[in-house]
């Protein structure tokens, strides 16, 4: 068998050589070239997607750098004043009260509808954005012109209000009207997430800017200070101590005590603490503080001079 093969090789040496070269070529093609070309294609696709991402992020960076931090903070404060992050009942009541007082109406009755929690789960981790309303039935009394001004102003203040179910009736023997209405206000929790860095970010549209401008022109009717949205401007400038400085307010502090050694006392000298005279005491000419110690266990002890 081997002899036959050797003879075939010897007789067809060039054929065998070319066949071997074809084999090498095929191996190179299928093992080397095609996988490398596929890797190159993957690389090219990666580059394309990377390029798209870069364009997107670049656009986002341009948008972010074109925005002014201070104006954003102001706008954020305005929109939060319009729609607070929680029920914020004080601002709701304060808004209604201030508009009523400004227009010469007085509130004879106010009833916040339904049971309402004062806090909106501030300690809880939010999983979705809550959008809700808070409403109150209000009874006002005043002139018809004042009622008109009140209703006009109600929809042009921050925080935003919506008036529903209006009814008027005249008070007996008076020019005053009794106005019964339902005032609704809104709150919206903060966004749960800000998205991924690759998410696109557009500048404010004309419509959004118009809304912002309109809202910013409305006065803030309530007197409650809203929470700052900026981390650079803390709302509480002074640090409030969380640990009490004095545990017992009636105890004499260590600073006001002087240490007096007792030498002539047996069996062993001890130190006792006596109150140090304060400024008031010295001003009134109080004598040097003395103390007599007569321990029952030591008859030989003498009073301290």
């Amino acid at each position, binding site marked *: 068998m081997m002899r036959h093969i050797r003879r075939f090789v010897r*007789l*067809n040496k060039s*054929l065998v050589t*070319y*066949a071997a*070269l*074809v084999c*090498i*070529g095929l191996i*190179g093609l299928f093992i*080397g*070239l095609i996988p*490398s*070309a596929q*890797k*190159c294609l993957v690389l090219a696709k*990666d580059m394309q997607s*990377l390029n798209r991402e*870069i364009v997107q*992020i*670049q656009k*986002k960076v341009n948008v*972010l*750098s074109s*925005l002014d*931090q201070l104006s*954003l903070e102001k706008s*954020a404060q305005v*929109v*939060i004043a*319009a729609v607070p992050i929680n029920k914020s009942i004080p601002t709701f009541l304060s808004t209604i009260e201030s508009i009523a007082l400004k227009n010469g109406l007085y509130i004879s009755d106010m009833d916040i509808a339904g049971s309402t929690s004062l806090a909106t789960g501030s300690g809880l981790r939010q999983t979705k*954005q809550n*959008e809700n309303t808070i409403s109150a039935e209000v009874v006002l009394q005043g002139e*018809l012109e004042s009622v*008109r*001004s009140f*209703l006009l102003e109600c*929809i042009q203040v921050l925080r*935003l*209000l*919506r*008036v*529903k179910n*209006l*009814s*008027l*009736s*005249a008070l007996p023997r008076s*020019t005053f*009207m009794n106005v019964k209405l339902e005032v609704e206000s*809104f709150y*919206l929790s903060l*966004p749960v997430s*800000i*998205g991924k*860095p690759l998410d696109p970010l557009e500048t*404010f549209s004309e419509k*959004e800017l118009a*809304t*912002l401008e309109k809202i910013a022109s409305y006065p803030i009717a309530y007197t409650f200070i809203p929470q700052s949205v900026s981390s650079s401007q803390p709302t509480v400038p002074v640090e409030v101590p969380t640990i009490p400085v004095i545990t017992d307010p009636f105890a004499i502090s260590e600073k006001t005590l002087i240490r007096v050694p007792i030498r002539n006392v047996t069996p062993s000298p001890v130190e006792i603490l006596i109150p140090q005279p304060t400024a008031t005491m010295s001003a009134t000419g109080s004598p040097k503080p003395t103390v007599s110690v007569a321990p029952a266990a030591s008859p030989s002890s003498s009073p301290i001079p």
Partner: protein
Amino acid sequence: MASQNINLFQTKTLQPILTLIERYARTTAIILLSIVFSGGLIVGIAYIVFGQQRDSMERKKQQLLTQVKSNVAKESMVILIRNRISVIDSIMGTQISYAPFITTTMKVIQSFPLTSFSMGDKNSMTISFKVFSIEEAMGIFTTVLDMEKRKEITNPVLQSFTLNEKGIQIGLSYIVVL
């Protein structure tokens, strides 16, 4: 014809099919090897170039991401504002101003005391007020008709007219044109 070959060993095959195969094998080997070598060269260069470009793009992306992260406060504020603006838009779309209804009523009743005021569907209103003479009542009706001509109100209806010793109680309903 005598052979020109002096070799006693037979070095070449005499089968023509093998000669044909050899010729094709040679051509195929040349083509295949040239494809593999040239293709390998091109792919290799492309791989190096693409790899370098991808690395530089990756670096640029990281730099941009760092810039985005440094502006995260701005981004969160933009999202907050945009989020609230859409809500504010929808709220403002549903806010109803009752002031025009009061203004229209004040125009109708002039300075006479309003007794009651209630609102119905589609801007319809019903009011009742008190006047003290027929002339005053006629004046009110004239005003109402004038307002209808000016398209300030539509469909005015006299709901009630009661005259007694205390005065005249008039009930009117109309639709306010906003």
